[in-house]
C-alpha cells in the first residue's frame, strides 16, 4: 500500500531541514511552545476522562467543563497546601537545603583533596582554586551572578504558563470540532488522505507521550532500586525527579546526577565510596536508558533509527540549545509523518486529477447558478 512506504533520502533531507527550521523558530517563541507542549500533555492525559464521562451519559461540553473544573480545583488546593506548608516549614526547608548544599560542597572539597594527594600538579589548577569552599561563598556567588536573572526568568515564564490550563480547557472542549473544521476545508479529493494524516499525527503525539511516560517509570524503578540498595534517603522520590529531569536529554541528566550526588554526599559524609557508587549507578542507568529503554519506548513509538536520533539531538542542540534537545525528537517524529503524508497526497497524480475535476465541476455549478 502506498502510504506504508518509507521516506527516501530526499524526503529525509527535507525532514531534517524542516525540523531544524522549526526548532529555530520554536526557540524564538519558546514562551508559547512550552505551554503548548504542556497543553498537549494535559489534553492526552485528560481526554480519556472526558470520554469516560461522555460514556456515562454526560454531554461532551459538560464533561469537558467538569474535568477541567476538577483539575482547576485540585491545582488550587495543591498550591494552597504547598503555600501553607511552605510558610509553616519554610525555616526547616531552608535548613535542610543548606545542609544538602554544604554536604555537596564537602564532597567536592574531599574529592579535590584526594585528587591533589594523588596528582600534586592539580594544586595549581585554576579549576580547583576557583571552586567555592563554603556555603557563604556559594550563596554570594549565586546571589551575585544568578539570582536576578532567575527572578526575571520566573516573571517572564509565569504568564505563559498560566496559559496551560486555559488552552487545555479549550482543547478538551473544542479540539475535535476544530479538527473537523480544518478537515472540512480540505478539498474532497484529498479528504481521506488528510484524515489519515491527522490520524498519524495524533498517533505520533500520543505514542511519544506514552513512550515518555513508560521511560520515566522504567528509569524511576531502576534508579530507585539502586539508590535504595545503596541506602540513600528518599530513593523513589529522588529517582522520580531524576527521571523527569531526563526528559531534557543530556542537560537534565547532568542536573539529576548533581542532585543525586549532593544527597548521597550529605547522607554519607564520611563515605566517599558510597557517593562514587551513586555516580556509577547513575551512569549505568543512563547507559541502560540510552541504549535499551529509549529505543524500546520513545524510539519505537516514533519509528526513528537510533543513529538518526543521536545525530538529531546534536543538531537540535546546535540550532536551539537546551530547548532544541527537549523538542528535537517529537518535532522530528511529527515532521517525518507530515512530510511523508504530504508527499503522498501532493505527489499522487490521480488525486490531483480528481481535485482538478472537482474544481471544474464547482465552477460549472457556480456559472450555472449565475
Amino acid at each position, binding site marked *: *500500500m502506498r502510504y506504508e512506504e518509507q521516506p527516501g533520502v530526499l524526503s529525509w533531507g527535507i525532514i531534517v531541514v524542516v525540523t531544524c527550521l522549526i526548532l529555530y523558530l520554536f526557540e524564538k517563541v519558546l514562551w508559547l511552545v512550552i505551554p503548548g507542549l504542556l497543553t498537549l500533555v494535559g489534553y492526552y492525559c485528560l481526554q480519556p476522562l472526558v470520554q469516560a464521562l*461522555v460514556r456515562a451519559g454526560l454531554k461532551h461540553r459538560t464533561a469537558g467543563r467538569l474535568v477541567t473544573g476538577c483539575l482547576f480545583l485540585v491545582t488550587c488546593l495543591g498550591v494552597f497546601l504547598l503555600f501553607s506548608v511552605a510558610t509553616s516549614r519554610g525555616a526547616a526547608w531552608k535548613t535542610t537545603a543548606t545542609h544538602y548544599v554544604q554536604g555537596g560542597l564537602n564532597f567536592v572539597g574531599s574529592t579535590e583533596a584526594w585528587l591533589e594527594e594523588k596528582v600534586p600538579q592539580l594544586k595549581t589548577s585554576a579549576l580547583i582554586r576557583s571552586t567555592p569552599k563554603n556555603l557563604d561563598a556559594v550563596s554570594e556567588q549565586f546571589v551575585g551572578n544568578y539570582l536576578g536573572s532567575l527572578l526575571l526568568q520566573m516573571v517572564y515564564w509565569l504568564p505563559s504558563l498560566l496559559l496551560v490550563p486555559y488552552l487545555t480547557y479549550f482543547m478538551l472542549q473544542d479540539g475535535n470540532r476544530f479538527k473537523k473544521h480544518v478537515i472540512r476545508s480540505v478539498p474532497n479529493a484529498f479528504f481521506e488522505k488528510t*484524515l489519515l494524516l491527522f490520524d498519524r499525527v495524533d498517533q505520533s503525539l500520543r505514542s511519544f507521550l506514552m513512550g515518555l511516560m513508560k521511560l520515566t517509570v522504567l528509569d524511576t524503578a531502576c534508579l530507585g532500586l539502586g539508590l535504595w540498595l545503596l541506602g540513600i534517603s528518599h530513593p523513589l522520590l529522588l529517582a522520580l525527579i531524576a527521571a523527569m529531569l531526563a526528559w531534557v536529554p543530556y542537560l537534565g541528566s547532568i542536573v539529576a546526577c548533581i542532585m543525586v550526588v549532593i544527597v548521597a554526599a550529605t547522607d554519607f559524609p564520611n563515605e566517599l565510596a558510597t557517593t562514587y557508587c551513586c555516580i556509577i549507578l547513575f551512569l549505568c542507568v543512563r547507559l541502560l536508558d540510552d541504549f535499551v529503554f529509549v529505543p524500546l519506548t520513545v524510539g519505537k513509538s516514533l519509528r526513528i533509527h537510533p543513529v538518526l536520533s543521536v545525530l538529531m539531538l546534536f543538531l537540535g542542540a546546535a540550532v536551539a540549545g537546551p530547548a532544541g534537545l527537549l523538542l528535537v525528537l517529537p518535532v522530528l517524529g511529527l515532521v517525518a509523518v507530515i512530510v511523508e503524508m504530504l508527499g503522498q497526497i501532493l505527489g499522487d497524480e490521480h488525486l490531483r486529477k480528481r481535485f482538478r475535476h472537482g474544481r471544474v465541476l464547482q465552477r460549472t455549478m457556480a456559472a450555472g447558478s449565475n
Partner: protein
Amino acid sequence: MSLFKELTTRELRELDALLHERSYQKDEVIFDEGDTGLGLFVIVSGRVKIVSSHAALQRLAPEFGPGDYFGELALFEESKRTGGAVALEPTQVLALFRTEFFSLLERDRRIGVKILFELSRTVVARSRKLLANEAHLPTV
C-alpha cells in the same frame, strides 16, 4: 439511517464526534476503484452510483440513495476499493473513518457491536445477492 438505527441518543452523540460531513457536486468522484479504502460513507441526501470493472459488482448495487451506505469493506481492512463511487446529483454524505471507528470500538464496545452487526447484515445480504447473480456458484 439504517446503519445507526439501533443506537441510543447518547451513543449517537458519541458517534457524531467521529462523523465527517462532505458535499459532492453532480458527477464528482467520491473515490475510485483501486484507491486504498479508509472508511465508509453514509448518504444523507442525493444519489451515488457505483462504478466497477467487475461486472458482478456493477450489477449488485448500481445506485445508492439517502440512508444507504457504501465502502463498508474499508472499515474491516485496508485494501483497495473494488469499485468507484460517483455522485449522480449534489450529494451530502457522512464519512466514518476506519481508525476513528477502531478507537471508538476500544472505548465503547457496545456502539461498535451495534454498528458491526448492522454492517454484517448488509455484507451478508450483498454477498447473497452477488452469489444469486452468479449462476455457477451456490447460495449459502
